[in-house]
Structures are given as structure tokens and as C-alpha cells.
């Protein structure tokens, strides 16, 4: 199985329709132009499906950069 980091960047690249090379740990809603509210919803749904988790309500709005996404995934994937 690929690392969580790799899976997240692949997934973000797919959802935001940008090359994976443009995704880094420093990527955020400010650096990715296509990250709008609809894509954000799709991102959350895709993350939940990919990792088989449910992201808590209060976190959904906070997941606006790579590091936070990785953190919440790592915490929830056991």
C-alpha cells in the first residue's frame, strides 16, 4: 500500500484536476486555484471513501491545506 501522503496527493491531483507534481505538503486552498467550495465537498467525499473514514463535522471546514488533511487522515485511519 502506498503511503498516506502519496495517496492524498494523488487524490488531490485527481479532484482538483492538476498534475500531481504541483501538489506538495505546502499546497493549500490559497495555492490551488481550482479549490472551490464544490471541489472541497468532492475532496471530503473522496477522502472519506478512499480511507474508509468519516471526517468529523467540525473538521470538514478546516481541511484547507495538505498538512491538515494528512493530520486528520493519520488520526482517523487506524
Amino acid at each position, binding site marked *: 500500500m502506498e503511503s498516506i501522503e502519496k495517496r492524498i496527493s494523488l487524490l488531490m491531483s485527481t479532484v482538483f484536476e492538476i498534475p500531481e507534481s504541483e501538489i506538495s505538503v505546502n499546497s493549500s486552498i490559497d495555492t490551488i486555484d481550482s479549490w472551490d*467550495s464544490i471541489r472541497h*465537498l468532492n475532496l471530503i*467525499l473522496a477522502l472519506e471513501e478512499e480511507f474508509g473514514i468519516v471526517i468529523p463535522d467540525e473538521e470538514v471546514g478546516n481541511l484547507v491545506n495538505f498538512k491538515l488533511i494528512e493530520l486528520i487522515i493519520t488520526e482517523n485511519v487506524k
Partner: protein
Amino acid sequence: MVELKYTQILQENKILKEKVSGEPFRVAILSNITVNTIKELIEYDLRRNGVNPIVEFGNFDNIVQDSLEYADHNLVIIFFDLQTLVDNIPGYFEGLSDDKVDQVEKRIMGEIDLIFSNLKTTATVVFNKFTSGFFPSGFIKITKIESLVDRLNRYLTTSCPMNVELLDLGKVVGDIGIGQAIDVRFYYSSKAPYTIPLFKKYMEAIKPIILRVSGKFKKALVFDCDNTLWKGVIGEDGMDKIEMSSTSVAGRPYFEVQRIAKFLSERGVMICICSKNNADDVEDVFLNHKDMVLRNEDIILKKVNWIDKATNIREISRELNIGLESIIFIDDSAMETDLIRQQVPEITVFQVPAAVHEYPKSFLNSLYNLFDLSGTEEDRKRTTLYKEQFVRQSETSKFESIEDYLSSLDIFLSITLNDKVNIGRIAQLTQKTNQFNLTTIRYSEAQIAEYMEDHGTMIFSVFIKDKFGDSGITAICIVKEDPTNNKAVFIDSFLMSCRIIGRNIEVCFLDFVLRYLKDRGYENVLATYRRTQKNGQVESFYEKMGFKFQAVGDDGKDYFIILSEYVPFEIAYIRSEFNGSLKIKST
């Protein structure tokens, strides 16, 4: 059918986007909730059917006005949800007076009229029926919202024009369960109540419409035989052990699937067989097995041979003169379904579920909608017509990429000499294996155990795994030293389970054995093929491996090979390891 994850669909859709071109097919989705997640799913389904879509969304909660705006689109899908509407009503809905409810109802009916009238020139409109899925259920007394939903749906049914399809969204929700279908979190944050599983199920529901608008109904069903049309393996179990009887627990699912297939055949769907088996065995079942529902007259074409199925299905497509994309392939083996998916991606693939009792239902759910069953008497005769008309083309077209496919499997052989832990399994294989078995000598556990202690005998067994999992111990080779010549050995048994035929595992295995014997200082290897009713497919195996004839008779062939002349086979895509010997033999 393997269900793709949402991100996989996004990826596949992106790839298809580059491939599919042509006159754009314009789809508009009008809704009063957020359903944007469905965009790529619809695009993906249309592109898979060779249609080049442009999917647009109307403004949020602006269905009536937008229905005029988007009327020129080829397909308009409407998500008219009561949730948004009810939210906009002050006060709790169940507390509303009958007059108020009546006002709401009248207003919605008026809107429906306007929408239908605005879209009267649109080729196809899908209007989702109303559902009360969001709202608490009235188990004993119907709630006001439920009764409103009932009345609105009745109104839809009576006022629905010819170009409008009513899709029962409540059934779609019910099929996966409200808990799975609706996610309140995103309703609050984004007015997006529906989950990815719901949208996927929705795409199944809308499939007949997608197929109709793209002119891509399926035409043919290609069945594997063993564990697909019946329980068991005809080549191994024989006529009296395979099951497809309506009265047997194990056979019942297969009976039901056959019954559906027969019905489809009567409606003009072409039923074909593609199976790795001896043709005579399968013919015997179709002719003589008392429990078969499908008979030869229901089958258009049979490909029963040992050629890979991708090649066979390409031939079926050519011989029946139908596109690959109009074929559905059904098999119980993950390896075969995966092969077809990779080699012939145009084909729709259905894998028999591991839980066989789910087979008929899952078969119906996945496939039934893919056919145009508005069949006439004429269609019912089509099977016969096709059978009379088509001329079999004898040329065979192979394609090189089978090798690519096999290398993607990550086949790994773990070879053990005299594996005492698995004596039971080894003996069982000698007793059960009929098709890939060069001499068909049966051994008991005691005999195998004795051989393992005997310095003149070597038993090699192979444990096989690939990316789909372990096949376990599936191939055996028993080698005995020649009592008259200590530089010579003979291969007493060489056999392999039919589950793993067609991957060159036998070549890799025998190659290993020969090199091992050479390393041990042996010079000459003798081998024998003994003909039985079942093992015709291996009669040239030793020739293929470079052995030379010593004697040829009606009942078989004797061979030898000089190990110093043996040219090893390089099967690059199979990795192997040797677990050494549990009994060191000195030479």
C-alpha cells in the same frame, strides 16, 4: 461488476475525455439541492458509451426558470427535492394546517406544469420522483410530508408527457438505505444531502436512459460455464457432480441465472458461451444434463477451448458482427474478468459474486437494465436467425499484449521439495486432477508420505500466488530415479489444477525441475504422456518443452531429454523461489 471508487471514476473519466470526441451531447442538471458531485459520474458513463458530453448545472433552486433556459439540451435531469422547499416554510411541516399543506401542494403542481411545458421540445427529460427519505418515517400513521409525496408522485404520473421519464429516487435511496444515501453534514454546510454511494446507485438507475440516448443497449451475454452456469467444474467433477437444479441449494442460484438468460434469449439477447474446457464435456452438459435450462437452441455461439478469453470474445464480436461495447462477459474468476477488463475494456464485465446466493439478484440488478426488452415477436426469432445467418470466420487473431497482461499479475511460485506438511493436499491433487495431468496416476496420502522418505523419489510441489491472492498448492511433479541408471530419472507425474491453466506456470515449473535435476548431476530425463478422456490438452506438453520422442502409441507417448542439451525457458513475468529440500539427497 467491480465498483470503482469516486477518485478512480474521476481518473478514468479524465482519460476517456481525451479519447471520446464527436458531436457534443448536452446535458443539463437542474436542482434545488447541490448535486454537483454527479457531474463526473454522468460524464464517465456517457463517455464509456462513446458519447461526448457537456454537462452543465442550472442555478441553485431555480428549476422553473432554468427549464426554459436549458430546454435546447439533449438531456435534462431534474432533482426537485422537498427538503429545500420544506426548509423555507416557517414552522414545522407536520404542524401545518391542511390548508397550508394544500397551498404548498398546489404551488408544486403548478411548478411541475411549468417545467413540463418549458421542456416540451427537449428530447429526453428525467424527473426524479419525490421522496420523503429525509424526513422521519411515520410507521403507523402516515406523516403529512409522506402523504404529500404520495399525492405529488401520483400527479407526476398522470401529467407526465411522453418525453419525460420519471425516475423513482425513493427506490434508489431505499436500495442502499437512507443511512447510506443521505449525509446530513453536507446538507447543513452545502445543501448537498446525497452521498457518493447514492450517486453511484443513481447512475445504475438512470442507465437505461443513458444507453437509450446514446444508442448503446447491450446485445450479447457471454457466459463462462464452470461455476457460472453451474456449480462445479465439469472437467473435474463430471456430469453427476455439477449442479444447476432448482431443487438443490448449491444449484439453485445457477438455475435462476439460467432462467433469466433464457428469458433474455427469447427477447432477442444473444447468449454465447466462452469457457476453458474440453468442448465435448460442455456439449454433453448442454445436450444431456437433465437440469439445464439453457439448451443448444438458446445459444448462438460457443467458444469452448483453451485459448485465452480475450481472443475468443474478439472473435465472438466479429462473428456475430456486433461491437465489443455491446457485449457483456460473465465469469466467476477474478483472473478472467480482470483479463477482459484490461485487454478488451469496451466490454462490460460481471463477476459472479463470491456469495453465490447473491448471484441472481446481483446479475439482475447489474445487467437487466442494459438490454432493450421492448422486444417484439420478431426479436424472439432473432436467435434462430442469427444462428442461420452468420458465417464462421476461421482465422484467429491473437494479440501480443497477453504477455503484458500476464506480467501485470505478479505471479509468484514457491517450489518445495518433499513438503511433508502438505502431504494431504499433494495426494488430493493426484486424485482429483484430470485435465492437466500427464499420467493420471492416483496416490494415497500413505504412498506420498512413503515417497518422501524414499531417497529415489522427489516430490516437487508449487504454491502459487498472484495479485489476486493465493491459489495454494496447485501443481505437483513426482520424479523417480531410474533403478538401473543412477544418472537418469523419470517423471512419474506432472499435474496442475485447471484453475491456473493458461499462465505458463507449467513451463516455469518444469523448467525449474529440469534445471534442478541438471544441477544435481542427472544427465537424462524420461517422461510419459498417458492419454485419458480428459487430458487431451496436454498431449503436446513435453514436445513444447523440448523433449524428444522415444515411443509413440495409441495410448500415449514416451519421451526423453538430455539435460546438457536442454534450453531453459525464460518466463520473465513469473518469479519463483525454492524452499530447498526437507530431505537432502546426495548424488
